[in-house]
């Protein structure tokens, strides 16, 4: 029961949180910013609209948003938000989760290529390249967590005697993991300094350019998929950082979401104080966390055993 409620709450709150980033950015720019509920309004507006399909596209184009949305939604099924066990949990669920994400991306890229627009092909190439690089870090983190907890399930990462938490026994190592995961989060969710979600310049876009041709409900599905994905990554980070623990489930959940909001705020701050990198520097930026996490993994190994 708790798991179902937790899942529903996560789905409902996911559109709210990105507006926090916009608010923070607006604050830095001396503006008022959009209302916090902006994403709900946008979603409702988009669902009321029809979709426009180019005659050069096929069924693949229509599948992209659906698969992307479903896989993102499924990620939340596996992830323990707060300290509530997720709906689905078994040994190896982390692998399924990240491959689901890969599947969603694969179909988004296919849909972009299906439009045969030169921009979208360019964006797809960038997305494929950068997310491949980011994947190295993600799997390195999984290997590390497996070594430390002996488990391949999200629920077990964060519970039990060896819980992955900054307050726990591996705190020092996890600092580097947090940094690495943060960079992966920025990359995977097309945030500054890797991508600029606010730009209108199609030649510089990565993720946005792939969805230029989607409209109406399709676009809404893609946007919602992106919000779920961002929530998943910040939830992942929050579970590692979250220093609070309470016996009460509700208090725990509130504390957890407070940390999640903190992560969103830091994203807003990062976007306000840095410019995005030149495209050819982005791979170096994405590979940095891999090196960090790989180093951490080495530190957990014995010498001459």
């Amino acid at each position: 029961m708790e798991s179902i409620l937790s899942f529903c709450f996560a789905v409902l709150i996911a559109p709210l949180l990105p507006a926090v980033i916009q608010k923070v950015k607006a604050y830095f720019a001396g503006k008022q910013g959009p209302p916090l509920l902006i994403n709900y309004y946008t979603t409702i507006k988009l669902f009321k609209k029809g979709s426009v399909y180019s005659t050069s596209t096929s069924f693949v184009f229509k599948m992209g948003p659906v698969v992307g949305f479903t896989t993102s939604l499924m990620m939340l099924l596996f992830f323990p938000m707060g300290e509530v066990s997720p709906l689905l949990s078994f040994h190896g669920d982390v692998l399924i989760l990240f491959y689901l994400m890969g599947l969603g991306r694969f179909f988004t890229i296919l849909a972009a290529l299906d439009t045969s627009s030169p921009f979208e092909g360019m964006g797809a190439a960038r997305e494929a390249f950068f997310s491949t690089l980011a994947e190295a870090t993600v799997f390195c983190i999984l290997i590390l967590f497996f070594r430390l907890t002996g488990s391949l399930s999200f629920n077990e990462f964060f519970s039990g005697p060896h819980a992955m938490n900054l307050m726990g026994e591996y705190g020092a190592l996890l600092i580097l993991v947090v940094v690495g995961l943060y960079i992966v989060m920025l990359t995977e969710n097309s945030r500054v300094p890797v991508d600029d979600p606010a730009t209108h310049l199609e030649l510089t876009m990565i993720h946005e350019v792939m969805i230029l041709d989607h409209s109406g409900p399709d676009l809404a599905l893609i946007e919602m998929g992106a919000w779920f994905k961002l929530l998943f990554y910040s939830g992942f980070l929050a579970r590692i950082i979250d220093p609070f623990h309470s016996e009460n489930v509700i208090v725990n959940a509130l504390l957890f979401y407070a940390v999640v909001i903190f992560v969103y705020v830091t994203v807003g701050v990062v976007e306000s104080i840095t410019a995005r990198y030149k495209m050819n520097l982005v791979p170096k930026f994405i590979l940095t966390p891999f090196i960090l996490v790989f180093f951490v993994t080495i530190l957990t190994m014995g010498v001459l055993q």
Partner: protein
Amino acid sequence: MGKLLQIQNNERLNRADIPHLEFDVFRQELVDFVENGGQIVQFFAYEDQGAMKLLAVMRNDKLFVAGCDGPDHFDSLTAESEKFHMFEREIGEQYGLKAEGHPWLKMVRYHENYTGKKDVFDNDYTQDIPGNYPYFQVEGETVHEVAVGPVHAGIIEPGHFRFQCCGERVFHLEIQLGYQHRGVEKLLQTVPFKRLPIIAETIAGDTTIGHSLCQSQAIESLADLKVDEGASIVRTIALELERIANHIGDLGALSLDVAFNPPAAYFGRIRGEYLNLSQVLCGSRFGRGLVRPGGVTHVMQEEQRQLIREKLAELTPEVIHVSDLIFTAPSVLGRFDNAGTVSHENGEKIGLVGYAGRACGLPYDARVTFPTECYGDLPANTNEKTDGDVCSRATVRREEIMHSTALINTLLDRSAEAASYIPEEIKLAADSFVVSLNEGWRGEVSHCILTDDKGEILRYKVKDPSFHNWTGLALSLRDQGISEFPLCNKSFNLSYCGFDI
């Protein structure tokens, strides 16, 4: 080189006094002139009593003029120097005179020529741009082409950009404009006289003062009108305010293009404040309706002086602060530095003007070299950073904002007040020629007027600085990542309609 006639900016000449050379001599003179570092201000064709003629206004640190008969086919000057390439294409398009041996004889704005001669480009103008022009092609297995526009996301003007890329790397960018061709030059030759200033103001909406100033000075010279000192001060202040507002807007936009939001938001607001100062000066935020032949329509009184002075004192520290925010952020400098470099040599070859030129180490500034209005006794600006990249262009603009602010403050302290403007019947001198140059915010703006024996306008030639600088943008993209294009484009921020006229 001695056959060109040296003239002054805004000097009225009898057309008979302009040296009329044999074409071969004319060609050689011009080629020699540009070889010695000279540049072209105007080079155009016109029709005089049924005969085609060419006229060239050249500059080094002086202005020179010469003309010749315009043969239907002539040996291209571009074959000798790249500086002529746009001008010869324009001559071919406007008057059907073909430059033989031109390495890239492509249409400029895509319209029928004025003379009914056979079209130089064999285009059928009922078809859309580019007609039968085959765009530049790069061949190879990994080469791909990205075409952008003419309809863009956002609120920019129409222009077509074609990138020949290998992956993310751009080999070549081809720019096709002409979507906003309105026939301004033709219009200026035919409309009732009192509409001239109104048309001049709309040649390029962001260079209202620049263009209307050129036109008014040219007409004043032809009609022998004197402008009092007070009006000159207002004109100079208006031109400098236009410069500041545009530079600030562009610095903000540059920062937005690299996803650095706060300065973009601040400069967006501050630009509005400077536009409001234009409104204080003349009732229009974009300087419309201020400059007219013979003077200015709005008298600047103590009240306006005080308002502008106080607002400048308030805004200047803000501008310095926000510029510092941009130019001290390492991530921003990382984007600006070495992006979109145009070498000094290339800049010289294609005759870059304005801040784009100064950023390549071409110090030419029409305010200094050919001063008009109050510029003769005002201090010049110098630029520290001249590497030709986006960072240099941004830095030059930042320096010019401060320089212009100082100029306005100096001028506000002068007490001369303009006489009220009274429109009067203006009669242009017959058979005359005048060329007028001013440093608009984007660079050298130039208008050239020829009158016939009845004092009617025979040929009105307009040149916006963008006419030179678009080629610079194409060059800056060579060997860059395609994602650098918006940044390079904004650092030049050229006018589409000013080019398309």
